[in-house]
C-alpha cells in the first residue's frame, strides 16, 4: 500500500497530466477482492452482536465453537480458492474428505498400522487423487467440472464399497486410543494455548466448569491450521513467482503458455492442493471424533466453493484472494453456529448461504467490470 501511494505522488509531482483522474484510496480498497467478504464478516458480527449478544455465543467457549466450524471450512475453502484463481474447480473435495478418513481408519484399526503411517498413507493417496484430477483436466482439456464430478462419485463409491467390504459397516470407530504417544497425530489433534485459558480461568474472566477447569480448554487444531494455511496461501499468491503463475494460468491460459508459464504443472499442483487440504480436514475431524464415517464431508465441496466465491474469487479464474476465502468461511461458520443462539429456525441457514452467494457473485461481477474498464 505504501508503495502504491508513493508511486502515485512521485508521478504526479513530476508530470501533471490533466487527463489523469486521481484515484481515491477508496477505489484502491474497492479493487481488492477480499473487500466484500471482510465487510460481510463485520456485518455478520454486528448482527449477532445485537441479536445474540446476551447469549453464550460470544463467550470464550461459544467463540471457539464457531471459529472451529469456520476454520474447518476455511481449510478447504482456501485450497478451493487457489484452484479457482488458477481457473479450475474441484467438486471432489467432499468425497476426498470421506476417502481420506477411511484411508486413516482402516489401516490403523484393521491392518494394525501405526497411526502415523496411515496418516502418511492418506496424504499419499490425496496426492495421487489430486494428480489424477489435474492430469485428466490438463491432458484432455475437459472442463474440470466434469472430471471432478466423476471423481466425486468414484471416491464416494470407493469409500463406501471398501469400508463395507473390509469392516461390514459404514463407520470405523476406535481411533481415539491410538492418538496418544503417536509421533504424528498430535499435529491434527492438539488444543494449543491451554495455559492462556487456564490463566484466564484462574482470573475468572472466562466460564469455568464445576471442577474449576475452564470450559474452553484451548485453541482447537483446526484454527491453527486455518490461520497457518491462510498466511501460507496469501504469501504464495502475493509474494512468489508461483503465485503469479496461478493468476496467469487462470486469467489467460493461452497467453500464459505463450510467455512460458508452465500452466499444466501449475494446475496439477493446485488440484493436489485441494486434495491435500481435504485430507488435513479429514485428519482433524477423524482424530477429533475418534472415528471415520463414509459419509463424512458430503457437500463440503459446494460450501468450500461458496466460501471462495463470497471471498471474491471469480468463477472464470484469474482473480481472488486467500484472505477473502478465509473471511468467506468465517461468515458461513459464524452464521451456521450463530443461528442456534437466535430464535430463527436453523432450516433458514441454507437460504442464507444461497442468498449470500448470489449477492457476492453480483458484487464480484461489478468489481471485475470496474477493474478492467478502459479509460
Amino acid at each position, binding site marked *: 500500500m505504501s*508503495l502504491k501511494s508513493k*508511486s502515485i505522488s512521485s508521478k*504526479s509531482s513530476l508530470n501533471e497530466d490533466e487527463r489523469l483522474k486521481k484515484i481515491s484510496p477508496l477505489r484502491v480498497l474497492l479493487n481488492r477482492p477480499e473487500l466484500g467478504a471482510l465487510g460481510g464478516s463485520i456485518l455478520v458480527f454486528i448482527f449477532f452482536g445485537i441479536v445474540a449478544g446476551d447469549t453464550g455465543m460470544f463467550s470464550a467457549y461459544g467463540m471457539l465453537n464457531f471459529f472451529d466450524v469456520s476454520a474447518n471450512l476455511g481449510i478447504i475453502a482456501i485450497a478451493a480458492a487457489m484452484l479457482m484463481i488458477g481457473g479450475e474447480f474441484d467438486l471432489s473435495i467432499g468425497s476426498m474428505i470421506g476417502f481420506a478418513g477411511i484411508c486413516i481408519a482402516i489401516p490403523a484399526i484393521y491392518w494394525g498400522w501405526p497411526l502415523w503411517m496411515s496418516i502418511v498413507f492418506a496424504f499419499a493417496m490425496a496426492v495421487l487423487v489430486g494428480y489424477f484430477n489435474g492430469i485428466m483436466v490438463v491432458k484432455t482439456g475437459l472442463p474440470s467440472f466434469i472430471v471432478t464430478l466423476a471423481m466425486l462419485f468414484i471416491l464416494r463409491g470407493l469409500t463406501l464399497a471398501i469400508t463395507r467390504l473390509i469392516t461390514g459397516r459404514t463407520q470405523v470407530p476406535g481411533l481415539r486410543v491410538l492418538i496418544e504417544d503417536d509421533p504424528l497425530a498430535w499435529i491434527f489433534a492438539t488444543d494449543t494455548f491451554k495455559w492462556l485459558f487456564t490463566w484466564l480461568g484462574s482470573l475468572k474472566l472466562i466460564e469455568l466448569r464445576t471442577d474449576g477447569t475452564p470450559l474452553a480448554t484451548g485453541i482447537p487444531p483446526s484454527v491453527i491450521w486455518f490461520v497457518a494455511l491462510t498466511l501460507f496461501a496469501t504469501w504464495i499468491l502475493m509474494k512468489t513467482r508461483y503465485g*503469479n503463475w496461478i*493468476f496467469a494460468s487462470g486469467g489467460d491460459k493461452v497467453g500464459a503458455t505463450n510467455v512460458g508459464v508452465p500452466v499444466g504443472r501449475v494446475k496439477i499442483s493446485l488440484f493436489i492442493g485441494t486434495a491435500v487440504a481435504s485430507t488435513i480436514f479429514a485428519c482433524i475431524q477423524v482424530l477429533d471424533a475418534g472415528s471415520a464415517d463414509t459419509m463424512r464431508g458430503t457437500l463440503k465441496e459446494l460450501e468450500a466453493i461458496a466460501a471462495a466465491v463470497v471471498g471474491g474469487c471469480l468463477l472464470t479464474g484469474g482473480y481472488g484472494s486467500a484472505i477473502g476465502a478465509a473471511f468467506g468461511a468465517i461468515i458461513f461458520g459464524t452464521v451456521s453456529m450463530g443461528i442456534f443462539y437466535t430464535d430463527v429456525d436453523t432450516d433458514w441457514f441454507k437460504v442464507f448461504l444461497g442468498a449470500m452467494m448470489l449477492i457476492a457473485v453480483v458484487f464480484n461481477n461489478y468489481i471485475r467490470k470496474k477493474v478492467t474498464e478502459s479509460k
Partner: protein
Amino acid sequence: MTDYLVQFNNISKFFGKVIALKDVTMRLKKGEIMCLLGDNGAGKSTLIKTLAGVHKPDEGEIIFENKKIIFDSPKDALDIGIGTVYQDLALVSLMSVTRNFFMGREPQKGIPFFKTFDVDRANKIAAERMGQIGIDIRDPSQAVGTMSGGERQCLAISRAIYFGAKVLVLDEPTSALGVHQASMVLKYIVKAASEGLAVILITHNVHHAYPVGSSFTVLNRGKSMGTFQKKDISREKLLSMMAGGEELDKLEVELQEMDRIHSKN
C-alpha cells in the same frame, strides 16, 4: 558470411494434404522492418507460428546469426531471441502491469526454497520501461484492463524487448486500433528498429505497413509473391498484389467479354 541477422529459407509447412506454406523465404538485417502482407487465409498465422517455434517447418531452414537452428518449442525461439507478440498479446487484463510484464519470468530474491517475487524491483523496471515509451503508468499495480489498446500493445512489445528479443515478430499490432493509437504503436516499432532490432511486422493493412517498412513480403495462398524493397514498389502495387490483383484483373476481362457477347446477341 552474410550480414543477415536471421534468414528463413524456403520454409514449407503442410497439414495433411493442405499446403499451408510453400517455399517462403525471408531475410532480415538488424534495424530492418520487414512487413509481411497478406489477406485472410494467406498463411500468415502459420508462418508466425513457425517463426515462433510453435510449428516445426516441414521443409526449409532457419538461420540465425549464421547458424542453422531447429526449434523444438516456443521456448527455444524465445531463448535465442525471437520474440513473438501475438494478436491476443498474452496479457491478462485482471492482472497488474507489473505482474503481466514479468509473467513467467518473475525476478526473485531470497534464499532457495523461500524465494519471493521481487515486487519492488519488478514495479520499478516496469514503470521505467513504460516511461521510456512515453506511457506514464501512474501505478504499476493497476490492472492492465484499464489501459488503452495501444498501450497494451506497447506493453507487450516492450516486454518482448526487455526479455532479450533481437528479432521481433509482431502479429497484426495495429489491427484493432484507431488512427491515433496505431500511430503510437508504429512510432514505437520504428524506434525499436532504430535501436538495432529486426522487426517482422505482420499485417493486412498496407497503409500502416508502407510508412514504416523497409521491405515487403507479400503472401498469397501460402506462397510468397516475392520480397520488395520500398524503393522498388508503390503502395498501390502492393495493395493490388495483396488482394490478388491479377485475379481481379482477369475477372474484369471476363466480365467485359461477357458484356461484349451480350451486346452482340
